[in-house]
């Protein structure tokens, strides 16, 4: 909005030096991050109280169900806070005329909405088993993913034509594959759906998803910034795509909001992300991966998410059919707590693993 306003003012003769700052990407990236962080911090506690009073509490029972150790009754759907902060900040600092921003924001909010429906049902039924059915959730997610895939191959996508359906592999300069549009669409649908679910499943311990997602989004933000900058892109041998800087702004805003959320969500949590947050974040990561054309970087930068969903799927699908457990507990972070490692320790360890993965991913910037 600020950019639109500044453009309008400049178009109407108000050519003031300070206003020109807004046209610098780095300025907007930092201001966006700061704004969403401060916004989340400012309204955070009040928002938690609001959720609590609206009875959006995690599997809340009556008073007798509360004990001094458990997490029952802690407000959930805290993803709304992230969504609110992101929306506020992106409306201020994002370039709303950019197709990237529009798609990212729309997808982010839609996924959040789907998650919220799920959370809301869980809360209303007071059971973690009674949210949206698997099928319903899948259908609702596909309702965005399919148009998104079509958008990626269509002329609406600001990415230039030859790049749209090719696939890059990390650590290799040139694209290795150029898929047909149909195949690429199928690939997008499968990959986005998997990424969203992987991120969703990782949300299980206080601060785990927040911490790891910040790193993943950070890596994609850096990639987006570089690809959108003709000089850096040329130097690092990336295909230059105009306007991807807006993806960096979005990433920065999301990181700020997540930091603001982590402020409250870190162990012991005052509020949970809920599916609202995890689906929205998952959606954002998936969209950033595809819009920056770094789809196959995800198994590296989001290796943790991939591993988590792998363990969970193995336990559920194969173990369920066999009628026995394969791991003691799944997904993996629960296995760790089951082995007797304390929750905050598990979270920090997994974040350290994520940092490692992020560094490897950044290595692919230069090693190509």
């Amino acid at each position, binding site marked *: 909005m600020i950019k639109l306003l500044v453009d309008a003012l400049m178009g109407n003769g108000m050519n003031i030096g300070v206003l020109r700052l807004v046209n610098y990407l780095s300025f907007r990236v930092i201001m966006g991050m700061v704004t969403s962080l401060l916004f989340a911090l400012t309204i955070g506690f009040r928002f938690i109280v609001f959720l609590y009073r609206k009875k959006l509490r995690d599997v809340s029972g*009556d008073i007798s169900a509360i004990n001094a150790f458990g997490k029952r009754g802690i407000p959930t759907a805290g993803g709304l806070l992230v969504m609110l902060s992101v929306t506020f900040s992106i409306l201020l600092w994002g370039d709303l005329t950019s197709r990237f921003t529009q798609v990212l924001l729309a997808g982010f909010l839609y996924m959040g909405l789907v998650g919220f429906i799920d959370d809301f049902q869980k809360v209303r039924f007071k059971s973690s088993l009674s949210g949206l059915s698997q099928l319903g959730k899948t259908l609702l997610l596909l309702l965005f993913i399919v148009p998104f895939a079509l958008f990626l191959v269509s002329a609406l996508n600001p990415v230039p034509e030859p790049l749209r359906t090719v696939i890059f592999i990390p650590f290799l300069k040139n694209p290795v594959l150029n898929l047909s549009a149909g195949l690429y669409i199928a690939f997008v649908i499968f990959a986005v759906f998997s990424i969203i679910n992987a991120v969703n499943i990782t949300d299980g311990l206080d601060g785990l998803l927040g911490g790891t997602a910040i790193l993943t989004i950070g890596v994609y933000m850096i990639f987006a910034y570089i690809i959108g900058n003709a000089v850096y892109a040329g130097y690092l041998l990336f295909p230059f795509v105009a306007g991807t800087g807006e993806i960096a702004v979005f990433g920065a805003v999301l990181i700020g909001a997540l930091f603001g959320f982590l402020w409250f969500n870190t162990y012991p949590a005052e509020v949970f992300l809920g599916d609202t947050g995890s689906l929205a974040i998952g959606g954002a990561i998936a969209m950033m991966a595809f819009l920056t054309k770094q789809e196959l970087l995800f198994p590296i930068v989001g290796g943790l998410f991939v591993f988590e969903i792998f363990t969970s799927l193995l336990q559920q699908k194969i173990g369920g059919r066999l009628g026995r457990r394969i791991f003691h507990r799944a997904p993996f972070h629960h296995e760790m707590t089951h082995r007797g490692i304390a929750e905050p320790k598990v979270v920090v360890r997994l974040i350290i693993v994520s940092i490692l993965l992020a560094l490897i991913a950044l290595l692919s910037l230069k090693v190509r």
Partner: protein
Amino acid sequence: MKKLTTKVLKGGAVLTSGTLLSRILGFVREILAAAFFGGGRLYDAFVIAFSIPALFRRILGEEMFERAFMPPFERLRSQGRAGMARHLIIRIFLILTLVLIVLTAVLFFFMPALVSFLAPGLSPETAGEAVLLGKQILPFLILISFSTLTGAVLLFSDRKAVYSTAPAVMNTVIILVLLAFHRHLGITALIIAYLSGAGAFFLFQLPAFFKVMKSLKRNEPENGKDPLNHSLKESSRIFVTALANKGVEVVDRMVASLVGFGAISSLWYSFRIVQLPFSIISLAINRSIAPELSRLRGSRNYRDFGTLIHLGFDFNLFLLVPVTIFFMAFSREVITLFYFRGAFTLAAVDRTSLAFFYYALAITPMGLIALLNRIFAAFENNRAPMRVAVFGAVLNVFLDFILYRTPLKQGGIALATAISIFVQVLLLFAALHRYPVRLRYRRILTTFGQLAFALIFFIPVLIIGKILMPETLHFLPLLLWLGGIAALAFLLYGTVTYGFLRSRRTEKMKVVLTGGGTGGHVYPSLSIYRILLEKNRIYQVRYWGIRGRAEEMIVPRANIPLEFVPAAPIAGGSPVAKLRSALTLFRGTLTAMGKLLRFRPHLVVAAGGYVSAPVVFGAYILKPFLKLKIVIDEQNMVPGLLNKVASTMADAVLVNFKESTYFMWSNRCVYTGYPVRADYLEPETDIPSLRKKLGIPQDAFLVVVSGGSMGARAINRCLADAVDRLAEQRKLFIIHSIGMNRTAAYNALEDTTDRLAASMGENFDRKTLECRRKDGSVFYRGSDYYHDLCRYQQAADLLVCRAGAGALAESMALAKPTILIPKRGLPGDHQELNAISIAEQGAMEVLFEEADPQSGTDRIPVPLFLERIRELMENEARRLSLGESAGRLFFRHASERIYTAIDRVIKGNEIEGETQIVEPRFVRFQRTFDNLIRFLDHHASKKDNLYVRFYNIKVHEYLASGKPLTVNKGIKLIGSLKRVDLYPFIYENFDTFQGYQKRNALAALAKADCFHEPFQPLVERGLRDSYFETRREAIALFNRFHKQLREEGIHRQILKLMKKQMESFEVKAEAIRAAVRILDQDVFLKEMEPVLFARNIRYREALLDAIRDGLALHRFENRETVRNFLKRMLITTSQFQPSFTVRQRFITTIKKLEEDSRD
């Protein structure tokens, strides 16, 4: 309030249509002028010259006459002092003439000085032109001044039509003259046009004016205070105010002449457009509000006065803000559209759109200022507006001089105007505090909130339109684009705001009742209707139900018009059936919306049943437009899916069970209890005479059996089968309501009579449906439907009924001992568990149905049924206590609660939903089956516990289901209920079990009270199983019965598992616990040496458990050694149990409170 709104709106409409016409014509005039004379030097000169009469017209017309002289005139007229009023007008006329003569003379002689003062930056030749034009236009000043006076009189004499069309006449004349002469006469044509226009204006009003004056002619003594003096004093203030307001335009022009070529005309042209919406919308509203304000102020009705101000405020804001935004977004396009033609160049477009962009900001504040000035005028105090206006003017000039130097140029001048007007609005609002007008800030906030909400539908359309719009300078495409965008945006916006701006409130309501399918849904909605009817709140009523269902019989009896809406249940059936019912639902929603639009109800009461869903959906969609309220009444403890969805749309959900709040998705649940029929609320005291009337022996033990209006198969069959043995009970008398079900699957009457005939033989009379004992006395009487079942129930000693909401509430209301027979197999077994939760409080007896092993149909075990009846017949104390607790549980204030809740909803007050959500125990059990298992573990020995009884029946069903997960539940129940008789099921099927089942089977056996021989092979097989959890449970079973189990390689196997490298830590930990039972002290400690420093904490925990077990089992000879051994153990670890101090304190406090309340 409604009258007030209409009155204002009607007046506004008349004014608006006239004003609209004149303003549009005036605007056409400007467009023509722009095309003929362009936006350059010549027009600059004309604007300067014309600004003097224009200034006077505005000051005299819109300000002084209407605000200073007319309020006293209006007051005199409304007080019936017509003569005084007429006199006042004549004197004003004289004064005006005098002023004009002097003024014209002064202006004529000092014109050059005036021009150079007004436009210091003008070039000499332009200034010369301006002086000439200024002198030529002086007659216009005189004519227009008189016309405004006559106009004001007409306005205040309710001749709004003439008043508002007169300017249109003027503009038409001007346009015609312009068109005729502009080619030949150049700029002089403009002068001639204006002069002739003003003449027409004056002449047009004259007849009506004389008529008014004539009507005022009346002989009466002139007395009282002369209002003119006061008016003159006021008028000087108003003059200053107006001068400050309008003079700013002049100053703006002065500064603009410094900016350079074309700036003056660019300001002029852009201001004309800005004025267009302002004058059309705002002046119309504010003008029609003004007389109303004076009237209300005169009658000191400050409540309506305040409401009116809010109304004006709302209207101004809602109408002007979007216009502002639209103009700012499309500033350039609008200017191009209106002016770009003829002599008006592209450069002029640039200049003008720059000014226009910033002028647009002033639209809303201008509207508000006009409103505020009129409020102050109603108080006949114009001091505050004067001061504020002067301050604003100074601020404006100050800002002008700062901003015109910036790159904004003439835009800066426009911006200065906008800022200063905005500041004036704020100051005037602040000044309003001194008056007895109490503005409700909540309401203002609401307005802003609603405005922001409505703009969400407005702005995106503009943004999208702006992005999609092609660059074009041609009139037609531009008009189509702009018009299209504006139409779309304003249409959306208007749709949203329409709901906000409409308000209505009445005491008597139009009500729609809905809900049905069965009587269980129809009766409650009729009860609510009666509650409202009793309080005299019903104006009109409709019942919307489904064709061919219970409501078709019941509703017409209550004299309520019944209409039909298509509906279908969503749950159950194949996907195709689901799709079909979804379509029906959609059709129903549309039908309901149509009906709602026609009936326009204030309240929709939905009492569940699937018909209520489409009605509620339709009502919810139309809610913003019809301002209706939705109330849902839910009788069942566990609502259906559609009701849960519908509940989110309701303003209040009335629930019968506190537990229902737990299932509802809405936060607005109000516990009201069940609105039982009035018959049930009056306990019958004279039972003997009632029995006499009903033909029942006085000394008989009367049992009334009923399975609801449709009838219950299991109950009917059980009773029919048991009837021959019931005959043996002396004194027993049975009334049986068989039910009206006549479907192919079950024909209640036929089936029951057949069975009765089978068991009673000749003693059953098919015609009268009576059974006789062998001695000939009647002891059974049946009927498919008793209209007066309530009478029988009142006379009864014992009731037998279903556990549905209605039946429950009725038997509780009667405070009779009851045997509940809950229906089996409903989703989540809720009727059974619901019955349990009531029976737990000692209020009812429960008899569970079970599945017939052969046919699978529901049945009630006849012996059990007989036993219950006999028991209750004999035990009078138990009967009394049951009846008493049932009566205690009944909530008697349902109707008051319901009325209060509905009243609150109608008044728009927030509903205080049930805050304490009680989680029903059965929900906790269903949510996690292990909760139930844990509960049963503790209560298994209590054979009369209802849950134990229920699940002892249920376990067979689980085991027979064939689904692995359900069988699994059955296995858990076997262990928990210690069903030794079912252990063979485990022994026989163990090898075919899945991993989970094996694990749970072994765990179930570990709960046994004593050792059974078949455990031995199971442990052996379990230890060798491929699934780690089975091995773990096998070791656990060994630990439980290690003394009885024979060695036979078990020990060796356990120790092997303990030492195995690739074993799950769970198994190894359990093995460590077993080791202490197997090994001697020394060997044990030796083996445990590595465990002391095991990396995995679970091993060390197991070791500590093992040592404690060993102590209890006296396995250690030398405790000191063990102690020294343990001292070396690694006890640093990351595992810890956090605890939240605030929660700990919360729990102890709550516990304390609960203890105290028990004392």
